[in-house]
């Protein structure tokens, strides 16, 4: 994975000093909160429901054991001994003090980590495929491109006061494991006539008005990409709406002027920007790519012993095939039945760090489904890894099953929320605690958001749950048929909302309808798409 050179290190160190200075001036009263807010947001610091919350960046979800141990250390020293992994591959700490923030960032900088631009109206963490470098279907590893974009977008002087936040995802396979089409800009790396380039999608997003990003350019060459993105961002910065924060994302601009008009404006701006010489030479992409060379694989192709039935179940559910013979991709579930989705204690984080160091060439990934991946595990080591996970309560064999729920922190943690999301997730997981029942239901991506901002990606859930405030009482709307994968679709609300127990019952009824009507190896979402809403509505509303 990428390693900082002196320049990269100098940038994060300077950022720490700058933010320390800004914090000092805020505390001394040289700045109002209104003036300080965009600055602290651009350093990932929110003022949240209970305390300051710090969102630390995990660039394209990749980190090593040293960095993972630092995250555990931060949780212990400055927070309450746990962290929350997010739907953008970052980690959040919920109990931060402003007076500690500069010290936290200083410690993070010693292991090449930061909280730069993880919030604010700027370009956020570039996300990517959690199986990058390990998946057989990728055209190339997308992460060097993500790193190139990370550097381009960091402290970008023109695009730090955009109309709204800006999220970019990069993938390199036709299977979309990063919800790429639901980003402000989504890039799919492809080969055309032997040359590597990107299909560019612009204008996706969830939130209040979910939209699937239209294709704006079928192929942009590697050495044009930064100029092209510069043009995309400049058009947005100039013409995105600033009159209404709920209409300020680029998806609204493209929806209002049309993809054709946006494409034309970008083409014009690109023709101009290209003359400025801002694209790095291919040598820079090659320099970065060298850090992502395959690890020194050395394991023979040995199938693991399936004697232990619990191990075998975990193997079948959580372990995915690897491009390299003898190796496998391990998914670590942070969704224990009845637990808090995406949370990990500092002790668990340390266990994952140790396992990665010993058994995954010292690398881990964070997924947008709030789980962790060990991308390079030799099959001969799988049993040992599983035992280590099991002992740390990290071995739930529920990847992509109904209890593998994506849930935002919700009203328990978030001042934007209208309803709690975590208790709903806990109740649903508990209702379906029987693993045979879960496996019988198969792949069922259930996603819960505590408010319309959709940080839980409910629009992209096969089953989505949206928490709303109904006259001061928490209420939950159910959506069916969403997907963040390559079969991307926005879920539809099925009818009137429910209280907390009601929505759990409704979900259960929906799964009963699915079991009654499914054909072949249809997933829940396939059956729903085939038979439509009526049978489900009838069962749920009677």
């Amino acid at each position, binding site marked *: 994975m990428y390693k900082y050179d002196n320049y990269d290190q*100098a940038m994060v160190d*300077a950022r720490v000093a700058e933010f320390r*200075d800004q914090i000092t001036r805020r505390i001394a009263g040289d700045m109002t909160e209104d003036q300080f807010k965009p600055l602290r947001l651009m350093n990932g610091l929110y003022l949240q429901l209970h305390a300051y919350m710090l969102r630390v960046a995990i660039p394209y979800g990749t980190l090593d054991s040293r960095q993972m141990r630092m995250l555990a250390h931060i949780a212990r020293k400055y927070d309450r001994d746990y962290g929350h992994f997010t739907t953008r591959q970052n980690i959040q700490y919920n109990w931060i003090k402003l007076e500690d923030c500069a010290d936290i960032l200083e410690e993070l900088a010693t292991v090449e980590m930061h909280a730069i631009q993880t919030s604010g109206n700027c370009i956020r963490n570039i996300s990517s495929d959690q199986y990058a470098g390990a998946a057989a279907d990728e055209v190339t590893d997308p992460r060097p491109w993500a790193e190139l974009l990370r*550097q381009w977008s960091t402290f970008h*002087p023109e695009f*730090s*006061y955009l109309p709204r936040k800006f999220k970019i995802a990069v993938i390199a396979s036709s299977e979309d494991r990063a919800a790429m089409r639901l980003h402000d800009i989504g890039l799919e790396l492809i080969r055309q006539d032997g040359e590597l380039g990107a299909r560019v999608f612009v204008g996706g997003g969830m939130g209040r008005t979910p939209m699937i990003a239209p294709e704006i350019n079928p192929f942009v060459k590697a050495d044009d990409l930064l100029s092209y993105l510069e043009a995309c961002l*400049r058009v947005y910065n100039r013409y995105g709406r600033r009159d209404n924060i709920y209409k300020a994302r680029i998806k609204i601009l493209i929806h209002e002027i049309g993809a054709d008009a946006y494409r034309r404006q970008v083409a014009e701006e690109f023709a101009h920007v290209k003359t400025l010489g801002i694209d790095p030479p291919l040598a*820079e992409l090659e320099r970065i790519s060298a850090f992502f060379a395959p690890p020194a694989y050395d394991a023979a192709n040995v199938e693991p012993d399936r004697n232990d039935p619990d191990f075998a179940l975990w193997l079948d559910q959580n372990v995915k095939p690897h491009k390299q013979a003898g190796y496998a991709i391990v998914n670590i579930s942070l969704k224990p039945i009845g637990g808090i989705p995406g949370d990990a204690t500092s002790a668990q984080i340390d266990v994952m760090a140790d396992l990665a160091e010993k058994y995954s060439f010292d690398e881990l990934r964070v997924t947008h489904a709030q789980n962790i991946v060990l991308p390079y595990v030799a099959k001969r080591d799988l049993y040992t890894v599983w035992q280590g996970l099991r002992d740390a309560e990290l071995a739930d064999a529920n990847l992509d099953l109904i209890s593998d729920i994506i849930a935002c922190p919700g009203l328990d943690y978030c001042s934007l929320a209208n309803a709690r999301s975590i208790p709903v997730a806990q109740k649903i997981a508990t209702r379906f605690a029987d693993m045979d029942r879960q496996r019988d239901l198969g792949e069922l991506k259930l996603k819960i958001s505590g408010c319309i901002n959709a940080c839980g990606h409910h629009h992209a859930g096969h089953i989505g749950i949206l928490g709303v405030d109904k006259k001061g009482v928490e209420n939950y709307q159910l959506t069916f048929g969403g997907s963040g994968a390559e079969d991307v679709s926005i879920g539809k609300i099925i009818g009137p909302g429910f209280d907390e127990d009601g929505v759990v019952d409704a979900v259960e009824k929906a799964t009963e309808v699915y079991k009654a009507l499914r054909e072949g190896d249809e997933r829940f979402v396939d059956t729903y798409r085939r038979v439509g809403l009526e049978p489900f509505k009838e069962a749920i509303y009677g």
Partner: protein
Amino acid sequence: MVEFRYRTDEVTEQPSVTLDAFLDQSNATAVRLEPDDDARALIPFLDRLTLIEVAFPKFRDGRGYSAARILREAGYQGELRAQGDVLVDQIAYMRRCGFDSFAPEASLNPDAVARALAHYDHAYQGAADSVVPIWKLRHG
């Protein structure tokens, strides 16, 4: 009031006119751009202008950063001034976008400004200033 100016030439005496007024009358040498004005409208006239003032009614409205870069990219060499809700912590990015003078509504502490401008020795990306981006330092 211009508080910070990073040019050695004389300050222009002429008051700036609005973009519409400028496009109507040809002899003004100072123009003021509001956030929703199109900076490119000035491109045919850049060599006549000694001052372009870009208004920042609210510091969060970042359109002026694009306006500034567009003008510098078009070859404008006169004074490019950020006026309005201009705060210490935006000046560094504004400089990178080509602004070389600042007329903040509320007075700024010069020490704070000097510190703000001195934090970063490098930049990752090319902009309107003369800083060589890091990728270029890496590859020559």
